[in-house]
């Protein structure tokens, strides 16, 4: 018995040594990644000699030159995009960023009422009352357009009958419909289960605006399951897949930002809306009815106090159009991004 115990100890020590060695190697690799050669900026975003980004005309930022914290809060739709940009920023040695995914409305509350955040992510433009509460704490929101999202209306990949839907049918499906047959006569009579982003999310606001003409009562009264966590929605929609021939089986439907659909394409199907498929060409052409702009908001005072925030926003605009496709959204037209670019130019000019 004692002898066996000895073996265990020996084994554990060996393991510990191996683990320590592994950790050490890993640590070195990370440090290596932290300091890439400054000339190494991949992608179709060439830099002119004087360190000006060719696409935006803003200075090229070296994240490693900055320190201090950056706090971003807001839309769960902008979250994955900001996360990707923030990862590159941190890989290039930039200071730490916290991004909270709490919904656009709650994001503005933290930005304009409690003043907790430096950047507010939003999947809808800021509202007038939010601007005035921002002003009452001395913040004047500056808008940065960062991309375009399309809402995906999704069903389980196992759904065997639904491929397209109209806006009028959506209004029935997400409110009074008990079965799918109530929506379209040729569809089978499976019970409907509805999944929706939470009422505080910009995604919800946008859906209600487009489908219900800004009246949220029908969807609130529908028995829909609301969650701020898009993974809950994906699980629910993919999981409640009806079986052909069994009329009692539930068929779920839901909607969220296109990125979540792209990530879960293997378990979900996106419906065409009004006969238009949600894809880049249709969104750019403005043909897809459920596409919407994505924003970030900050304030000149914050940028003056925290240069790292201005640097991050500049870095964001310089790089977002290159990174956005990976997240599953669509680049914003350059003309729409211009006002944000101008605000930052003004900052850099005055900062010298």
């Amino acid at each position, binding site marked *: 018995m004692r002898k066996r115990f000895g073996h265990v100890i020996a084994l554990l020590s060996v393991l510990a040594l191996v683990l320590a060695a592994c950790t050490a190697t890993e640590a070195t690799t990370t440090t290596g990644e932290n300091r890439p050669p400054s000339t190494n900026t991949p992608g179709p975003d060439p830099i002119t000699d004087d360190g000006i980004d060719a696409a935006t005309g803003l200075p090229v930022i070296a994240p490693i030159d900055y320190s201090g914290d950056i706090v971003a809060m807001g839309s769960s739709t902008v979250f994955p995009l900001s996360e990707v940009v923030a990862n590159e920023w941190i890989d290039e040695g930039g200071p730490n960023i916290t991004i909270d995914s709490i919904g656009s409305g709650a994001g503005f509350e933290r930005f304009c009422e409690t003043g907790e955040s430096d950047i507010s992510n939003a999947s809808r433009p800021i509202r007038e009352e939010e601007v005035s509460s921002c002003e009452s704490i001395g913040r004047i929101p500056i808008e940065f357009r960062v991309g375009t999202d399309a809402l995906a209306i999704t069903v389980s990949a196992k759904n065997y009958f639904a491929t397209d839907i109209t806006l009028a049918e959506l209004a029935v499906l997400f409110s009074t419909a008990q079965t799918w047959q109530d929506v379209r006569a040729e569809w089978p009579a499976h019970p409907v289960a509805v999944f929706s982003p939470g009422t505080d999310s910009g995604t919800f606001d946008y859906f209600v605006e487009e489908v219900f003409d800004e009246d949220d009562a029908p969807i*609130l009264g529908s028995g829909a399951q609301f969650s701020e966590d898009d993974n809950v929605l994906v699980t629910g929609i993919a*999981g409640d897949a009806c079986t052909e021939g069994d009329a009692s089986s539930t068929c779920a439907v839901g909607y969220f930002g296109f990125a979540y659909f792209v990530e879960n394409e293997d378990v979900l199907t996106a419906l065409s809306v009004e006969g238009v498929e949600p894809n880049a060409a249709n969104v750019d052409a403005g043909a897809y009815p459920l596409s919407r702009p994505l924003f970030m908001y900050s304030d000149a005072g914050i940028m003056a106090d925290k240069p790292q925030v201005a640097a991050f926003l500049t870095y964001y605009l310089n790089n977002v159009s290159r990174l956005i496709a990976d997240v599953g959204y669509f680049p914003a037209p350059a003309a729409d991004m211009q006002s944000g670019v101008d605000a930052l130019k003004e900052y850099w000019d005055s900062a010298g």
Partner: protein
Amino acid sequence: MTGHATHTNTQNPFRKRRRPFEALVKAALFASGALSIATTVGLVVVLTQQALLFFFDPQVSLGEFLTGTAWQPQLGAFGIWPLILATLITSAIAMFVALPLGLACAIYLSEYASARVRGTIKPILEVLAGIPTVVFGYFALNFMTPLLRNVFGDATVQIFNQASAGIVVGILIIPLVSSLAEDAIHAVPQSLREAAYGMGATRLEVSTRVVLPAALSGITAAFVVAISRAIGETMVVAIAAGAAPRNFAFGDDSMLGFIVNPFLSGETMTGHIVRISGGDISYASIDYTSIFAIGLTLFVMTLTLNSISRRFVARFRETYE
């Protein structure tokens, strides 16, 4: 003390010697006791305050709150029953799992298991008690739900459902039931068992007819603590049970097919509170104060349970000297 007293004989012989350190310890112990009471009082005050804000809102009537069967705060429908019902369903399922298994476990450990087996099993059970509940939540969603769907069919069992959450909450509280029940069983004097064995009783007879009745009050207390725990459990139901209160209307909806059907999704009081407070709704709204009313209801429910258990324990306590 006595030695000292003889010296100061001329004065008061019963005067205590001063012990400053003793006083310090006493004060520290009192402070920690007082702190937990103060926390409870603070909690009740905050809960009641916010809940009163809710009840005094013109949109709300106490009658509707206590009898209504639809909880749609954004539409001004504040009937607590859908939330209470989901809480009761998941807790009942949890009890159905935890009570028999936990009790059997306790009886096995204290009456049947050899010291060695006991020494192995008890720590394992304690590990089960130490697993974070969020892990149990995903266990419910990713293991229990697919299992239920295999057994009863995808058509019957929704992806988010109360049965799966309830079963896993039950598993979660087995260690609690078994350890409390075992303590109660352990407290039964050995002489009772020996007397029963002496009269030719089998192990099963001793366990079920002598030990269990003797430990009844302690076991009941264990059960009630477990029920409170099940009612208050949050993460598992938040993850696996669903994200909307299942509103119903008596008469329109079938009782077994819909209202109390555990295979459908539902939202418990705790699940609703955690979802709403997690950023779904803004602070200054009635929806937000409504969660304090739910919290207060929960508090009243567990308080009632605890008082019942105290009374029960006092009434049925068997004392052995």
